């Protein structure tokens, strides 16, 4: 990366025109910026990535193809917009002619109070122009947008009414490369292009905070008033966005947004799709990364249980060099990890072969886009005689950290995978898990449902 230089202005493309911002607090959100500029189409409904009323689209690279990507502007710190190309709802209609997504929403009765509508339009617009889409729009692409008025049916109809995108300026835009998101250094914000440079900044500036997709940090800022004098983004480090799949394993860059993992992992086990659908919303998945999810060490994060069941390890990198740590040894306590200051997660490694059977279960009040009350990932390999060769039971929401039930795994290994084995696992759960009660559920429920999930896993085994 370039050596630290004098602060440059923040520059990006907004609705096709260049924007220069001379001074911006690194904690200002893109949404606040847009609204203050008079682009009030994007609304603040929650400021925490839940409602999608603030959605805008970025032009992004999707494995060599250029795509529009809807994201929550309330969770993008303004400097993260540097070098990006951003479109807001104001840019879609041209000379009074509505874009297809807009026309469909209006005609179908997709707006009542209209407050959620610009956000829906942006999500739908991105889906409408999704490269490679052949069938109808995927209505789940809108699952990151909340509407309190319509009950969604007309919005679903609007989405399903859309055909192929027209050959217009937007489609032509997708024929060209996406903007390069490279090194940036502006006041209060740095986007280095190597792991070493990143570690360097963190070591130099103890007040600096690492940021990846900002879907966690942004909430911390907006809702809890946390402020950071300097943010260091990993978005420019290409190594963190790599993905590779070989016979011995899969390596996922810690800075690769979840959406891209789903796209890049060609031979993914079915559990990945199950897990992705249940993880946040498309708007969040378009930015959120595994590095950010694991680094928070949240006991209710959804990545840890699945990755634990897949025996993942983490590649860490920092000023002190590089090391690999099994995920099972990564969490050291409530929201604590082995990460040292200046060290970051570079990649997640999943060894192959994967277990023959892996399932992910998530207990939450709402089926889509909710935080887990309990999350569980379970994996079983059996030998030809039906005895368990390898078992993995990993849970979130039941202790101070995500955890693997090694005792339960050992209790069933070498045994037939049957109801008796299920009971042994349940017995370990009963004795060792220490869930708490909160607004998501009581400890009694967490414990009972954890046991019940083991039974469900067994009941739903392929027969």
């Amino acid at each position, binding site marked *: 990366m370039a050596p630290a230089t004098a602060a440059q202005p923040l520059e990006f493309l907004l609705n096709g025109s260049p924007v220069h911002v001379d001074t911006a607090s690194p904690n200002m959100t893109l949404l606040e910026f847009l609204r203050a500029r*008079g682009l009030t189409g994007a609304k603040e409904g929650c400021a*925490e990535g839940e409602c999608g009323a603030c959605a805008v689209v970025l032009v992004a690279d999707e494995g060599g193809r250029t795509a529009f990507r809807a994201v929550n502007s309330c969770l993008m710190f303004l400097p993260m917009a540097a070098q990006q190309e951003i479109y807001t709802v104001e840019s879609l209609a041209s000379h009074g002619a509505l874009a297809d997504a807009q026309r469909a929403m209006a005609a179908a009765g997709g707006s009542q*109070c*209209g407050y959620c509508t*610009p956000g829906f339009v942006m999500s739908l617009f991105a889906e409408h122009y999704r490269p490679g889409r052949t069938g109808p729009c995927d209505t789940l692409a809108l699952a990151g947008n909340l509407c309190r008025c319509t009950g969604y049916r007309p919005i679903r109809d609007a989405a399903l009414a859309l055909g192929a995108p027209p050959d217009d300026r937007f489609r032509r835009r997708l024929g060209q490369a996406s903007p390069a998101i490279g090194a940036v250094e502006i006041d209060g914000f740095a986007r280095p292009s190597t792991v070493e440079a990143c570690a360097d900044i963190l070591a130099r500036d103890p007040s600096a905070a690492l940021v990846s997709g900002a879907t966690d940090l942004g909430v911390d800022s907006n809702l809890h008033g946390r402020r950071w004098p300097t943010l260091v983004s990993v978005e420019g480090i290409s190594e963190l966005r790599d993905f590779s799949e070989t016979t011995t394993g899969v390596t996922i860059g810690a800075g690769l947004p979840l959406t891209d993992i789903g796209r890049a992992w060609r031979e993914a086990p079915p559990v990945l799709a199950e897990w992705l659908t249940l993880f946040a919303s498309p708007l969040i998945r378009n930015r959120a990364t595994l590095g950010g999810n694991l680094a928070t060490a949240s006991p209710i994060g959804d990545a840890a249980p699945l990755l634990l069941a897949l025996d993942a390890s983490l590649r860490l990198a920092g000023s002190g060099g590089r090391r690999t740590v099994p995920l099972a040894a990564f969490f050291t306590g409530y929201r604590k990890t082995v990460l040292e200051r200046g060290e970051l997660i570079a990649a997640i490694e999943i060894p192959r072969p994967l277990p023959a059977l892996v399932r992910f279960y998530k207990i939450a009040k709402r*089926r889509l886009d*909710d935080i887990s009350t309990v999350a569980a990932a379970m994996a079983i390999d059996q030998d030809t005689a039906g005895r368990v060769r390898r078992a993995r039971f990993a849970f979130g929401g039941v202790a101070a950290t995500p955890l693997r039930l090694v005792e339960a795994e050992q209790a069933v290994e070498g045994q037939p995978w049957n109801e008796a084995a299920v009971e042994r696992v349940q017995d370990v759960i009963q004795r060792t898990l220490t869930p708490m009660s909160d*607004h998501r559920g009581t400890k009694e*429920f967490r414990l009972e449902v954890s046991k019940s999930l083991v039974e*469900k896993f067994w009941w739903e085994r392929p027969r």
Partner: protein
Amino acid sequence: MKTAGQPVPHESANGHVTGEALYTDDLAGRFPGLLHAWPVLAPHAHARVISLDAALARVEPGVIDILTGADVPGDGNTGPSRHDEPLFPDEVMFHQQPVAWVLADTLEAARLGASRVIAKYEPLPAILTIQEAIDAGSYLTDSLRIARGDLSALESSALRVEGELSLGGQEHFYLETQASIAWRDESGAISVHSSTQHPSETQEVIARVLGVPRHHITVECLRMGGAFGGKEVQANACAAIAALGVWKTGRAVSVRLTRQLDMALTGKRHPYLARYAAGFSSDGRIEALRLLLYSDGGWSLDLSEPIMWRSLFHCDNAYHLPAVEVTGRVCRTHKTSQTAFRGFGGPQAMVVIEDILAQAAQRLSLPAHVIRERNFYREGDTTHYGQEVEGADRILTIWQRLKKTSRFDERRSVVAAFNAQHAHVKRGIAITPVKFGISFTATFFNQGGALVLIYRDGSVQVNHGGTEMGQGLFTKIRQIAAESLGVAEERVRVMPTRTDKVPNTSATAASAGTDLNGAAVVDACRQITGRLGPVAASLPASATFADVCEAAYRQRIPLFAQGYYKTPDIHFDPVAGRGRPFYYFAYGAAVSEVEVDAFTGAHRLLRTDILEDVGDSVSPIVDRGQIEGGFIQGVGWLTLEELLWDDNGRVATDSASTYKLPSWSEVPEVFEVNFLERATQPGVVLGSKAVGEPPLMLAISVREAIREAVAAFGHGDVVTFASPATPERIFFAVRRVRMGSGVFTFSVPHPL
């Protein structure tokens, strides 16, 4: 020209999809020097304020001023019906109640400033639950009561169903939070943009706080990003703070609550506790009902009293109760002041009666739909408050038609077959009716006003007293005006609601927005067309509407008129508990089918069929939207949205991540919505019927379908569970019914 009854999109649809439709906060950029406000929040549910020291806040960069009680020139009390809501309290009455407001150049500075205000409190004991309020005798009103008949049947009936049911509240979660911008206008008076359902009351409250006559204050509501009752009263305090800020600083002031502030500070749908005893004949006819309803009113009265009245009126839902005594108590707790929310107390009472009927069905081993049907009102019946149930035969008509179109009987067998084959997932199907009374129960609110202006080119401005919150009122008004004037819709512009156009309006609420304001618009239009008729007759047939208007102008005929409407024939005597509080009833029914997973307690809504009586629909897209949206909102309330307070009285679910609204996953996979045909409602504007609130209660079909599915895990035991039916509650309800001990267990104790 036929414009009414046409399926036209929302009048602002193009503005919505382009982002050009403006909401209050979108106007901020138009006010140079605008100040932003942030409250100083009390960290106690109940406490005395000992002292406030704002010295540190004043030196915070960007902070301009701090508003406290000493700044109020008039009467610093915003209570709508009773003087019980001090804007700057000496005694804190709920957790996070604002005790002062900081004004600053930016919201960030105001927030930091507020965190610098040093406030000292003396904590006082707090009442945080309905049961604690009952124990302490803490109520906001006297007992409200309606009774008829002889309750002795309770002792002699073949079956007695007794128990209690606790129902959670609901956060409105209008997507646009409370927002007001106030400024000193060109004439030196105060103008306010407010996201309010009730501009006239907002005006009244501001005038009261500032101690000026109401003509000094102009309130305008452009449109709201949703309201659902939550901005009927609760918009007033924000607007009052904004206006007070202008008064003190001379600068324009914006008060916009963040989502968390909105959820922490504003009132919600009332949580309820119901205690009941009901007597049934062996064939499932309800013979007597004694019902005690407690609502959690929070710290001040707000609209809790009429809300409880509506509960008392609706504890019958669609059923004839020969002997009944229903008593309502509004509990005073140290919580947000609960307020209007779509249905206004009706839904809670209707869930209770449906719960009782379902239990009776299980106890008598009869299908629940049979018991429901047996108890329907018939033509000629009167309600327990003495109102004849006009159109009662529509209940059965709707019921039978819906059963047929949804293939209810056939699908019941399919569900039974499915259940026989699946041990750990079960399905349930249920049909429930809705009867909902239309009118404000406070008779004097039932009036509407309009001011229709026609310009010489034939273009029209329509002003009326109603506000647009997404319910499609403006769309309907535009259709009604165009229809009444005989012009194309494009000629008609519906103006933002302003107190200087139509004064002394009622809140847009009680589903009556179109009935009242639409009729007033028709009245105004009729006067004008009456005047234009002779003019048109004197012109060649080829004369356009514009030609007629120009000619009328030249003949010195006024091209504007005020319209007025008051609902006839309604009255209610609260002492006797008798009267005709409702102009008419809206009817509907829904069939829902769900699938419950015993392993997780999760359920999926597979299919819903709705048949709703909307009269002659003025605007089919709008009406269908109200039905679907209301239904899903009800589904949220009954199955998903869990409003919780912690032990300190703080709202524990105070954000979008902890309080979950229905999203994509709650929409039924098959969703059939139809209007009852040939359903003209006499005496209502264009034969239409109110549709804003009634569909919410159709969601009770989902709760009842869940009960059916849970019951299928057991062996005929009665299934009960508190509301909402969260996965946790369903999970444990399945456990209980599987163990055969479902009877008389009410809910899993929840530590929060």
